[in-house]
């Protein structure tokens, strides 16, 4: 039997797809696929470092997509969940997909398939939540700025939505957990990393990077939020289910509740 090896990649999605390419191409008996900063050598496997190659990554992407559009988005979304060991799960998933006759009809009662679908669904749910919960604050240099702290790495997924919607204003959404952001400069969206002096979550104290009017609008929004509940119908449990507490920090309407 061929000995098994562990593939080490750079942590990027393209890197991961390159690893998949190599695994298939060289018919490697894959023991694991790990990010380079967190690799632990398996006792019985050799390691092989993968150099990210966009061409190869693209071939894998197209290969999966030609089987099923649904599958490629499942793979991408599940990957962004950053779940430990997700690479190996996805590898198995892709193997199953490629050997299936028709990728559109994957078997949902299969464990791996349902696991990947579940992960993808979680990420997709947070993507939608972030499209809803980002709160921009207008800075003095005319940028609508927002900090977020999502569970999963969803910035690449929400970029298009914000680009399509806020086409006539500069905006910047910054993930404080992963320390990078996306910035729209009225022309295109670019990745940025910032040296943030302070993280702008909800504070009663005002920061002078923002327009004075900014706080007026936050107050109006807060008032509006408060005026929407109908007292005789209050239901805190349902409220938290829709808007989990961990997101409140960045929601100006929850300023007083935090």
């Amino acid at each position: 039997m061929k000995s098994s090896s562990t593939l080490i990649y750079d942590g990027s999605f393209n890197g991961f797809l390159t690893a998949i390419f190599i695994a298939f191409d060289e018919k490697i008996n894959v023991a694991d696929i790990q990010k380079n900063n967190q690799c632990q050598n398996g006792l019985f496997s050799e390691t092989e470092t993968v150099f990210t190659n966009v061409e190869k990554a693209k071939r894998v992407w197209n290969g999966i997509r030609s089987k099923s559009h649904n599958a490629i988005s499942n793979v991408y979304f599940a990957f962004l969940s950053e779940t430990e060991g997700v690479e190996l799960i996805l590898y198995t998933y892709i193997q199953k997909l490629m050997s299936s006759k028709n990728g559109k009809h994957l078997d949902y009662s299969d464990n791996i398939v349902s696991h990947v679908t579940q992960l993808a669904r979680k990420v997709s749910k947070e993507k939608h939540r972030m499209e809803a919960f980002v709160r921009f604050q207008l800075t003095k240099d005319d940028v609508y700025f927002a900090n977020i702290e999502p569970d999963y790495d969803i910035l690449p997924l929400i970029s298009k939505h914000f680009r399509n919607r806020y086409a006539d204003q500069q905006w910047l959404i910054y993930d404080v957990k992963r320390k990078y952001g996306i910035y729209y400069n009225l022309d295109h969206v670019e990745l940025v990393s910032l040296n943030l002096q302070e993280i702008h979550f909800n504070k009663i104290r005002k920061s002078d990077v923002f327009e004075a009017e900014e706080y007026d609008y936050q107050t109006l929004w807060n008032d509006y939020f408060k005026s929407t509940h109908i007292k005789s119908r209050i239901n805190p449990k349902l409220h938290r289910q829709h808007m989990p507490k961990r997101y409140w920090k960045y929601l100006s309407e929850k300023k007083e509740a935090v």
Partner: protein
Amino acid sequence: MNFQRIREKLNILADAAKYDVSCASSGSDRANKDNGLGNASRMGICHSYTEDGRCISLLKVLLTNHCIYDCAYCVTRKSNDVKRAAFKIQEVVDLTINFYRRNYIEGLFLSSGIFKNPDYTMERLVAVAKKLREEENFNGYIHLKSIPGASDELMYEAGLYADRLSVNIEVPTISGLKLLAPDKKHEDFKKPMLKVKNEIIRYRSERKVIKSTPKYAPAGQSTQMIVGASGETDMDIMYSATYYYRAYQMRRVYYSGYVPVADDARLPAIGSQVPMLRENRLYQTDWLLRFYGFAVKEILNSDHPNLDMDVDPKLSWALRNLHHFPVNVNTAEKAMLARIPGIGMQSVEKILKARRFRKLNWDHLKKMGVALNRAKYFMVCDSRYWERRDLDADKIKGMILQTSSGKYRNKFSAQLSLFN
């Protein structure tokens, strides 16, 4: 911006608007135009949630809460002693734009008390929408209230700028309307609805010929009915909902449990329970009619004029029609799968896909999210175990109730016991 003044107005005019439950921002697909501001996403986004768990997606305000009418169920009625205010057109425009740019909202839902006369009021609502579209290049969602009695010309214009238009029926029976809103005529409600419906149809057919035909109310019309204010039955409500869906091609009918706002012998007293469970059952029925292929008379008829509060309407129907069951999930047609209690439309799709690969057993179904505690009495699958006892409807209902912890059971046990 005169912040203090705006703040005061917003507080009054948002508070008065909150009893309108329809806040959906879905169903429109206005794209961003010329790198302007905003777009309407087909699904609609809930940017926040009220403390009673409802979606906040629109800035929902009245243009004014001055009103010349005196509808008994409404906080804005003429005889009610409340603070009055009125926004200027530009003030609503500014609020909408600034909220939108901060990603607070999907757009605007503008309604109004009737000031002077219906046309005078409708004209101002239209002016706000027009300004947003033409001066601000705003492509977000706009929902305007059609004011009962407004002229055809204004309704025509409204549809050019708004994504959705709605007239609230409020009271589902004509006799109830006479009693509670004596100044309003049934025809006044129907007139603007009919105009908008006809325009939607006209624009749609023109669009087929000329691609560049502008949009006209792309998210259609909706309406709302108050539940529990005029002693109506569930059958009254759902038959009239079915009529509005059909006659005016409504996208949605909303049902709003009456929140007591007046001491008035014609209405439930202040402090009485909001009939939330009933409201929920009506929504469930609405779904069964729109997505599950049920006809309204199967669920409500003169033998059963009211919905069962203990169990959902689908289960209730199944219990009355045991002769259709058990259904074999591995062979049944889609329409019949959809009628099994505990199996939602999503599970139906999953079952159809998965059963191509293998015969499904209890485990598979559980994984797909089927509520087996209800479904198991009504189906068989690839297993030797299934409900063989010859149970009657009451027995089944009792056993299901014992094992279920419905959302509303504990919270509303007081209300429930009324019906037991």
